[in-house]
């Protein structure tokens, strides 16, 4: 039997995103001994009960899961941030256009994106990421948009000129070349290390 089996199972329970089944534990441990695993799970459960802490082991949906005790859920709710809201790609694009081309009118944004942006602009206005600063004195008197202070706060910027231009990021080059070399080094990592040791002009690969 594997040494530390109890701690291993506890750490597995701790990191598992879903209830941990006996089968998956067996797979990890390369073991067929369900009894031993059950025994450990029982032991852990009893231990958690005995110490009466913030969490307990619960058998759920065919597996086991560490859960916080329901007595404390009111406190947990106070901690957890409200639903994190992710900007959709469309919203991000629209926001980016307003940020880089401001002051800008809707038709310019839609021209760049090639699609209607009315709904997205409304949403961005509601979230106070953009604002209306007036109307352009051209036919139709379209509304002019700029970004807000909240926009700067969201992106942790002091002011708009701190916003890196896409060109500057472009000039950084391609990150994929880095990840490529990374992947390659993993594949050939063994040989590279070997060679590093022996490397001098004499043993250079010919």
């Amino acid at each position, binding site marked *: 039997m594997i040494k530390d089996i109890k701690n291993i199972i506890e*750490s597995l329970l*701790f*990191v598992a*995103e879903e209830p941990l089944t006996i089968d998956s534990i067996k797979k990890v441990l390369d073991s067929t001994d369900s009894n031993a695993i059950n025994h450990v799970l029982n032991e852990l459960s009893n231990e958690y009960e005995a110490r009466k802490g913030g969490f307990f082991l619960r058998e759920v949906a065919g597996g086991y899961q560490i859960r916080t005790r329901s007595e404390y*859920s009111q406190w*947990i*709710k106070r901690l*957890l*941030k*409200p*639903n*994190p*809201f*992710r*900007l959709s790609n469309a919203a*991000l*694009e629209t*926001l*980016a256009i307003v*940020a*880089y*081309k*401001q*002051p800008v009118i809707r038709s310019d944004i839609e021209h*760049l994106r*090639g699609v209607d942006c009315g709904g997205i602009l409304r949403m961005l206005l509601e*979230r106070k*990421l953009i604002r209306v*600063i*007036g*109307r*352009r*004195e051209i036919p139709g008197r379209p509304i*002019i948009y*700029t*970004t807000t202070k909240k926009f700067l706060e969201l*992106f*942790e*910027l002091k*002011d*708009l*000129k701190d*916003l*890196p*231009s*896409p*060109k500057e*990021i472009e000039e950084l080059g391609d990150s994929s070349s880095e990840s490529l*070399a990374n992947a*390659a*080094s993993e594949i*050939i990592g063994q*040989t*590279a290390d070997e*060679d*590093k040791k022996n*490397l001098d*002009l004499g043993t*250079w*690969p010919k």
Partner: protein
Amino acid sequence: MFEEPYKVLLDEVFEGPMDLLVHLIKKNEVDIYDIPIALITDQYLGCLSLMKALNIDLAGDFILMAATLAQIKSKMLLPVHESEEEEDPRMEIARPILEYLEIKSAAEQLSVRNLLGDSTFIRQPDIKDFLSNQDEEVITVGLFELIDAFQKILKNISEDQKINITADSMSVKDKISRLIDIFKEKESISFEELFAANVARIEIVLTFLAMLEMVKIGLVRIVQHTQSGVIRLFYL
């Protein structure tokens, strides 16, 4: 095809000219403050020609370092004037090597730490049950994603529509934003007031450019009083 693995291998072994230099110094077990510059330069150049022979694309950085080494080597050949307190020309290369070694060792120390996601793990708490529909939402988005989104748009539009975004034009945008804040408080502002707070010349120029831009797009109207001659800007 056969050169490819070598290329990656060598790139990984010597990440740059500094790396190669450090390797040569370590291999020869020489004192960093007393680098036998002729020997190291020769070996360095030997490596370069070997890499060339293997059809490895040599980055310009490698060539630049070769030039620096050659220059130091030639400086060393010049007679030393006792009177002049000139620095050992080799310091030009020793100093960056020391700094580089320090960074390498710092990187090594980082790499042996308990990396999250590799040697230590955190819980991925199942918090669905705790999230109630609260009014206020938190937006999670990074600056990089914003730039990325804009880059995608730039890629999709035709050449002649391309816009150059410079830091300077962003400063004007900033200024416009700030002027709008002032205008939102009071409807009009006099020309003098507009520039009163500015001290630096660049600030005055930016304010002026911002004002012109705002007039152009019809955000403000400029009016001069016939009697007093006071120029006022009105937010429309």
